[in-house]
C-alpha cells in the first residue's frame, strides 16, 4: 500500500471513529413518527425540512430512525412478494394470523353497542380495569316467537369474582330470516378466515364481502318490524318482532374475544374464534399458545398464574396446570359452553348455553350436574 493509499485508509478509519455515536434518548427536538414519515415521503415544506435537517445532522438517534425507515423501504422493495407469499412456516404464520384474528374479532365485537357497554377489555399487567360480565342467557327463540323476550341485561360496571369470566350470550335462532343471517355470519366468518389464510386475493375478498354486506342488509330489512296494523294491534307483536330483530343482529355478531387473568394479574390469556389463544406475558409480549382446539372459545377462568380453564363451542374444554402446556378435557356435554369458574386445577364448574352447570373436583375426569 502506498503512502497515499495508507493516508486515505487511515483518514477513513479516523473519520469513522469520529462519527460513531450511540443513539441517545429522544429529546424535545426529536420529531414523532408522523413527522419522520412525512420527511421520508418528502411531504414537508422546504422550511420544515431545513429545520429538521439542522437537527438530524447532529442527532444520532434521529439518524438511526431514518436509517431504519430507509432500510425497511429497501427491504420491501428487494423482497417484494405476493400477498401472504411470505408466510413460510407456521412459526411465522400463526402468530401473525392469530394477532390479526384477535384484532378482527375485537373490531367486530366492539362495533356493537351491547358488547361495547359490556366492556370487554384486554388486560395487561396492572392496567386491568374491567372484565366482561356474564350475559344472562336468552331462551332459545321458537320459529314463531310466542312471547316478547327482553334484551339481555348488560351491567354497566361488571363486577365478577376474580376467577370467572363469561363473555358470550347464547345464540340460537330458528326463524327463516335469522337462519339466513346465520348463514351470512358463517360466511362472514369464513371470509375472515379466508382473508387471513390467504386463499383469495384482496379484490375478490372485498367484492365478496360487499355482496355479503348487501345481502346482510337485505335480510336485516326483512327483519325490521312491520308497521302496526290498522286498528292498533297489541304492542306485544311489535315487541316480539323487535326482539327477534335484536336476536338476529346478535346472532350475526361473531363471539367477542375475552381476556383471562389470574388473581395476581401476572399475565393475560386472550381467547377468541377458531381456537385462538394468545398469552400476554408480564413484559406485554404476545405469544401464540397451541391448545390443539379449533372451536370458538367463549369463556375462561384462571385460579392462579399456572392454572387456566377455557371453554367453548361444542363442549370444548382445555386446561393448563403449568401455565405452558394445554390439554383437552373431556366434556360431559357437547353443548356450547359459555361460562366457567375454577378454584384450582381440579375444581371447576362449567355452564352450557342453556344454563346447565356441571362441576368437577378431579380435573375433569368426572363431572356431576349441579
Amino acid at each position, binding site marked *: 500500500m502506498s503512502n497515499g493509499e495508507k493516508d486515505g485508509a487511515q483518514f477513513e478509519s479516523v473519520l469513522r471513529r469520529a462519527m460513531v455515536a450511540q443513539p441517545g434518548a429522544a429529546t424535545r427536538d426529536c420529531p414523532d413518527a408522523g413527522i419522520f414519515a412525512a420527511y421520508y415521503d418528502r411531504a414537508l415544506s422546504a422550511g420544515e425540512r431545513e429545520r429538521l435537517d439542522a437537527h438530524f445532522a447532529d442527532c444520532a438517534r434521529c439518524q438511526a430512525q431514518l436509517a431504519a425507515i430507509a432500510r425497511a423501504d429497501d427491504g420491501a422493495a428487494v423482497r417484494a412478494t405476493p400477498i401472504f407469499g411470505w408466510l413460510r412456516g407456521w412459526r411465522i404464520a400463526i402468530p401473525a394470523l392469530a394477532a390479526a384474528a384477535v384484532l378482527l374479532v375485537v373490531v367486530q365485537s366492539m362495533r356493537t353497542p351491547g358488547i361495547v357497554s359490556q366492556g370487554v377489555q384486554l388486560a395487561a399487567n396492572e392496567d386491568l380495569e374491567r372484565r366482561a360480565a356474564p350475559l344472562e342467557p336468552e331462551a332459545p327463540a321458537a320459529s314463531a316467537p310466542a312471547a316478547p323476550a327482553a334484551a339481555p341485561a348488560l351491567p354497566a360496571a361488571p363486577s365478577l369474582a376474580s376467577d370467572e369470566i363469561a363473555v358470550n350470550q347464547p345464540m340460537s335462532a330458528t326463524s327463516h330470516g335469522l337462519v339466513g343471517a346465520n348463514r351470512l355470519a358463517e360466511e362472514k366468518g369464513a371470509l*375472515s378466515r379466508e382473508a387471513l389464510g390467504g386463499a383469495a386475493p384482496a379484490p375478490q375478498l372485498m367484492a365478496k364481502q360487499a355482496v355479503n354486506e348487501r345481502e346482510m342488509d337485505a335480510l336485516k330489512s326483512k327483519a325490521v318490524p312491520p308497521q302496526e296494523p290498522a286498528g292498533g294491534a297489541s304492542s306485544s307483536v311489535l315487541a316480539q318482532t323487535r326482539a327477534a330483530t335484536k336476536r338476529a343482529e346478535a346472532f350475526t355478531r361473531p363471539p367477542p374475544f375475552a381476556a383471562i387473568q389470574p388473581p395476581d394479574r401476572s399475565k393475560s390469556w386472550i381467547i377468541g374464534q377458531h381456537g385462538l389463544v394468545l398469552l400476554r406475558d408480564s413484559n406485554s409480549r404476545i405469544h401464540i399458545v397451541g391448545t390443539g382446539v379449533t372451536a370458538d372459545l367463549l369463556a375462561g377462568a384462571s385460579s392462579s398464574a399456572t392454572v387456566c380453564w377455557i371453554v367453548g363451542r361444542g363442549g370444548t374444554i382445555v386446561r393448563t396446570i403449568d401455565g405452558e402446556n394445554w390439554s383437552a378435557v373431556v366434556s360431559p356435554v357437547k353443548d356450547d359452553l359459555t361460562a366457567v369458574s375454577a378454584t384450582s386445577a381440579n375444581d371447576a364448574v362449567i355452564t352450557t348455553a342453556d344454563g346447565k352447570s356441571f362441576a368437577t373436583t378431579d380435573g375433569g375426569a368426572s363431572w356431576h350436574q349441579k
Partner: protein
Amino acid sequence: MDAAAAEFCTRYAAAIDRLYKDGNAARWNLDRDAFADALYRAAAASGAAGGVGAQAILDSIRAEDLALAIACKLGIGAAWEHFITTLRPNLYSAARAIAGDDMRGRELADPLWADLYGLEAREGRRRPLLDYYHGRSSLLTWLRAVLAQRHIDYIRASGRTEPLEGRGERAADASQAAAAAVDDPPEPERARFVEAMGQAMAAALASLAPRDRMRLGYYYRHQMSLKEIGRLLSEHESSVSRKLAHTRAEVKSRVDRALREDGKLSREQIALCYDYAAGDLPIDLARAFPEAK
C-alpha cells in the same frame, strides 16, 4: 367539535369535501364530520390549524390512507380487513428489515396490531396508536417509522453500550490497542496528538453544512448504502458518492490545516496524529521523528 375546529372546517370546506371524495371515505361509511375533524387535527399537529400553512398541509394529505386509518380507529371491520390484507405483508417485511432477523422482526411487529387498535385501555379509554397518524405521509411509511422508533427504543432498553454499527471494528480496535499497550512502550506525545486530532476533527465536522454532516453520518455511522442515503436526501446515488468524496476531502483538508496552523505540528507529527488516532500500532518507524531513527 370545538370552535377552532368548526372554524377550520368552515374555512376549508371545499378542500375537505375534495379530500373526502378523493379519499373514498364513503367506502367505509365515514361521517364527513369525523373526517373533517381528523383533517383539523392533522393541521393542528403541524401548527397550521390557525391558517398559515393549513392549505399546504391539506394539499399534502394522503386522503385514502387517512380515511382508512380513521375507519380502523372507529373499529369498522371492513376497514381492518382491508388494512390487514394490504399492509400486513409490508409491515412484517419492514420489521424484518429493521430488526435484522425474522424472529426479532416478528417480535417487533406482532404487538403493533393491538396498539394500532388500542386494545390496551388506559383510564377507561381506548387509545389507538392510529390517533397519531395524520395523513401527511403514506400509512405504510408511518408504520415503518413507528417500527423504527420502537426498534431504537428496544436497542437502548437492551442495555447495549456499543454503537449500532461498527461493533466489529471497535472490537478489533480495542483488542489492537490492548495488545499495543502490552507490547509497546507508552508514547508521551500520544495523548497530546490524539487530543489534537480529536479537536481538529470535531471542528472540521461542525463546520460542515447540515446535509453534509448527515451524509457522512448515514454513511459512516449507520453504514447505509448510497442508494438508501440518496432516498433520504432526495439525491441520486452518484451525487451521494460524489458529495461524500468532496466532503471527505474537505474535512481532511480542514483537519490538516488545523493541526498545522493551530497545533503547530510538523508534517511528520501530523502523520503521527493519524497513526495514533487510527490505532495503527506499532508505530510506523518510517514516519517517526527523524531523531528517533
